């Protein structure tokens, strides 16, 4: 059974958001890391890059696949988790903690409210099996 912390917001693309005022941290969920397998590389954007809602900002590469990662909300990249360059496996071992990927300054602070709650995400996971 996948781990789904209560205090985060989620997307159907299996990203999680942790909102802190105008900034949000983003990563991929436990379900995503489990499906991908061992993560070997994360292709990151640069600090200062701007993205629109639902735009792909990078990709996560595992031994068997590579998947794009999307930001559900528009904003500007303000911080990257550079530690993932040397230890990408943190995405597997601690997807909601040390496995965080980017921090984005939200164009519209309220946008995160439209995302799924933990309960809604859990519901969604049960439909896709």
């Amino acid at each position, binding site marked *: 059974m996948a781990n789904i912390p209560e205090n985060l917001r989620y997307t159907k693309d299996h990203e999680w958001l942790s909102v802190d005022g105008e900034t949000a941290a983003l990563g991929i969920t436990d379900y995503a890391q489990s499906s991908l397998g061992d993560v070997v*590389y994360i*292709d990151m954007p640069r600090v200062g890059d701007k993205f629109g809602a639902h735009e792909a900002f990078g*990709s996560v*590469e595992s031994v068997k696949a*590579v998947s794009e990662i999307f930001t559900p909300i528009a904003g500007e990249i303000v911080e990257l988790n550079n530690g993932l360059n040397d230890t990408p496996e943190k995405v597997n071992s601690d997807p909601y903690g040390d496995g965080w990927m980017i921090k984005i300054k939200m164009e519209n602070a309220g946008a995160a409210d439209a995302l799924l709650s933990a309960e809604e995400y859990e519901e969604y996971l049960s439909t896709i099996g």
Partner: protein
Amino acid sequence: MRYIPNSPEEREEMLATVGLKSAEELFRSIPADVQLNRALKITEPLAESEVIAAMESMAAKNTGATKPSFLGAGVYSHYSPTIVDHLIQRSEFFTSYTPYQPEISQGTLQYIFEFQTLICQLTGMEVANASMYDGSTSMAEAYLMARRVTRRDRIVVAKTVHPEYREVARTYGQHGGADIVEIDFNEDTGRISGLDALDDKTAALVVQSPNFFGCIEDLKSLADAAHAVGALFVVVVTEAISLGLLKSPGSCGADIVVGEGQSFGIPMSFGGPHVGLFATQEKFVRQMPGRLAGVAYDKNGNRGFVLTLSTREQHIRREKATSNICTNQGLIALAATIYMEAMGKKGLQEVATQNAQKAAYAAKVISAIDGYSLPFSAPRFNEFVVRGPQPATETLERLRTSNGILGGLALSKYYRGHDNDFLVCVTETTSRTQIDQLADAISNG
């Protein structure tokens, strides 16, 4: 793994399995009005002896193949040890194609890995790919890679880089928004100048060494100039044998090294097939084009080979691929690998030294001829420019028709204002007698 064609019986079986009567039915989606619907216009089948006679008659038209030649300019006459041709004729090498299920072609991946390793050692770079088609397209790919890495569009390239390489790279990038700036050379030294074209829009400074005139560039200070504006330093090597004597481009600060491997035991063959070299530093590896063989270990701890970092390739991720290349020059890269391994470090140094010494002798005797000089003062490897008292095309035509010598390449083919200059190349295959004959023929003209 040997690659053998299917027998008529096997074809029948395959057609029956898919429910077709003939192979032509597989092409039924092609509109009838573009189908040829006739036999190809070739001769009736000939007996083996007739085929051989016809081929020999065509080959005999290549009179240049039997004349002493001082031609270089990107394609070089070097001796290929017999073992190269002998080994590549093995059917498992000669017939095999690019592995698309790579892990079952361990032998192929192993020699690719050896090739990559040797190219890294010679260029002083951290990673090399499985090879590109040739030196000119390698350079074109380096332009694209530098633009991706730096997110800038300007390529500053020296006019002393092979003119045909520059033309190929320009064609390659013409629809991709590249801003190519060509910079001049110093007429006294033969080395590049015009570095003030470098700015914060520059993705790469591209330099060839030894350059088209045979002059060795000062790579270290060019690297510093490129890095000072945040651009990558790309070094082009058209004469791979020079790597046996000169300081490696990597040790001079190159970020990408591209070039031509034809000098490593590959026949000139009127321009190809040859083999492109591409090497870079580890930090840029994910932006490198081409196939990449890597070492891996199976679950029992046994070493094996794989094709790695495949997400750079178009069959894995089309829009984000670093290139559309999905193959390499396998057989040619293998031949070059056998050459490098047969010659070894000492052999390569010896060949390179002979090239430099013989070229120095030739430069000395030719420049001693009344009316002839060496216009460029920079140090050289195995090529140099000679300036004479009349148009070089006339000098070279006379050498060819009256003396049966291919004396070199007239610079006027590519450069304005150099009508009396021609490029001479001397390799380990040129004898002292031939050099003296060339000098005599020039001075008697």
